């Protein structure tokens, strides 16, 4: 890998982020109506005591710099962003967007990263076995039915799980990340409580992505199966398990690593609906509440966060890939 390539790749990352920021800014600001007037009207409509409506709007507009020309606002916005300032939430005014995101991020990352890695491991293994010729037919049938979960959007799976386990059987909590009344019995009970709350949302993501990773692994395995090195391993009389794991899986797993990295990038945006269904206090929940209230600074902040993670994961992947796969050489194409 050349330094030139790495620099170009990093520059591309910033271009993606900049384009997103610009697109979001103009999208929000050129849209009819402005968020602050909207917000004040909404508060008045819901019966909140706001005697000085118009004055408040003026004050807010000054504070958010909305009375300046659009281009100037844009430059200010980008400048602030560069310093890591995402602005203030309109609905919870003194709260900074960064604070809201910071509070929610650990929940999303914890839930999603765990679920994603778990489904990657299980999915790759099952997908490999599915294409392997000595896998018994009934096991293959079972695996195909797991694969069907890849066909259904994860939020519909989540809905069914929620209904069965939380509402009908009532063995798991219906939402939240922790028992609101707190737990007694020390740190162990607290961990168990957190785990119980994460189980259903996690499971719905695992079910959806396991099938997805299985599909990818199966087709990779199919293309590896005819290889000469497998034939050689067989001719040497190696035990089948060893051929499967060290020869077939080892070769077929590389593209799966790519897929995992790409999907790790979607980790932050992938769980929006699961978080909403289970009222899990992650980024998706923050985003959707902000959408409900048309709290644009928060929406912009969260979407930006998601874009940065996705583009960032792709960047890291591209930079690291030559190290994982010696066949890849970056140069000019």
């Amino acid at each position, binding site marked *: 890998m050349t330094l030139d390539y790495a620099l170009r790749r990093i520059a591309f990352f910033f271009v993606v982020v900049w384009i997103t920021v610009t697109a979001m800014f103009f999208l929000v600001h050129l849209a009819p109506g402005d968020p602050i007037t909207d917000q004040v009207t909404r508060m008045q409509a819901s019966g909140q005591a706001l005697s000085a409506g118009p004055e408040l709007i003026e004050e807010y507009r000054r504070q958010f710099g909305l009375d300046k020309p659009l281009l100037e606002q844009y430059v200010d916005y980008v400048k602030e962003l560069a310093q890591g300032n995402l602005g203030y939430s309109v609905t919870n005014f003194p709260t900074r967007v960064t604070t809201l995101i910071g509070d929610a991020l650990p929940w999303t990352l914890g839930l999603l990263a765990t679920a994603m890695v778990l489904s990657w491991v299980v999915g790759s293994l099952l997908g490999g076995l599915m294409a392997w010729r000595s896998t018994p037919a009934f096991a293959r049938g079972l695996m195909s039915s797991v694969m069907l979960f890849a066909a259904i959007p994860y939020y519909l799976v989540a809905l069914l799980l929620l209904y069965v386990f939380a509402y009908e059987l009532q063995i798991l909590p219906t939402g939240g990340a922790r028992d609101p009344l707190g737990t007694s019995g020390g740190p162990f009970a607290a961990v168990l409580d957190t785990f119980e709350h994460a189980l259903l949302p996690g499971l719905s993501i695992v079910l959806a992505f396991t099938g997805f990773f299985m599909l990818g692994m199966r087709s990779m395995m199919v293309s590896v199966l005819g290889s000469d090195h497998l034939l050689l391993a067989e001719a040497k009389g190696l035990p089948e398990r060893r051929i499967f794991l060290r020869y077939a899986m080892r070769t077929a797993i590389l*593209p799966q690593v790519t897929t995992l990295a790409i999907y790790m990038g979607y980790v932050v945006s992938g769980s929006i609906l699961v978080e909403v269904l289970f009222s899990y206090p992650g980024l998706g929940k923050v985003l959707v509440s902000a959408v409900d209230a048309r709290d644009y600074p928060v929406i912009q902040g969260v979407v930006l966060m998601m874009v940065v993670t996705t583009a960032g994961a792709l960047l890291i992947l591209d930079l690291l890939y030559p190290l994982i796969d010696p066949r890849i050489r970056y140069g000019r194409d």
Partner: protein
Amino acid sequence: MAETDLTPVASPAGTLAEAAGIARPREPRRWRSPQLVLGLLLFLSPLILSLLARLLVGQEDTEIFAFDPKTKPSADHLLGTDGSGRDVLAVMIYSTAPTFQMAIVAGLAGTVVGTAAGIVSGYFRGPADTAVRGISDVMLGIPAFAMLILVAAVMGDLSLIGLALVIALFSWPLVARAVRSQVLTLREQPFVTISRLSNRSAASIMTFELLPNLVTFVTAMFVGAISGALAIAIGLQLIGLGPIDTQTLGLALQNALSAGALSQGLWWWWLPPAALLILFFLGLFLVSLAVDEIANPRLRKAGRNG
């Protein structure tokens, strides 16, 4: 066998290009697989049934407070009534076709634009290629769902077709990239070279030489695009975005969930739209598996051995 060993692994699109087996002579393609038939049946029969049922059930049954709210399924209301007194079955009957229409329009728009961009980009290379690749690389780096939430929130009162087109805006780059990589292999084929040498116009080569060879591949992308668009649209509707003036299954589900149908145990309100959607997704999945196998004979072989 040996020619399959060095499948480039860097990009999924690259493996697809290899896998589609375009370079090899055509073999008889099997369009009549059980998966395809079952998939189409799951996908299309609710649509046809719902259109026929419109003759039996009037639209007035879907109006607010047409009946008592929240009544259990009975002989009068096979699926009961919802929280605002609409007949759930009637709502489903009138929601199915618009839901379909939205998904098909979104899938079609994304596939047509993506295929056109992919063919032009792969055939001409040069500046057109740079432009298409640049745009699609940037767009693929952006999580579409998150961005669509912002777009739908800003746009406010989108129509159903408007929503479909906005979704297509984010789905064409994927099609373009995949088609482009196919075209890159195709354009080096002798029949394309011969066409070029016999002085045929680029437009004619792209339409009559490249496009027919891409039909299976593009069909597979189309099925995927429909299913993706449907998943995104329902997702947006579940968080309260998108059109609320047209009845769709997503809207029916969102109404039920936001009114607390789950916690009140009103299963007949949320379960039917959810179940019908699951049926659609399974149908589309089976169709896409079948089309993939037609486009990629090696997968078919693997499914059968052992």
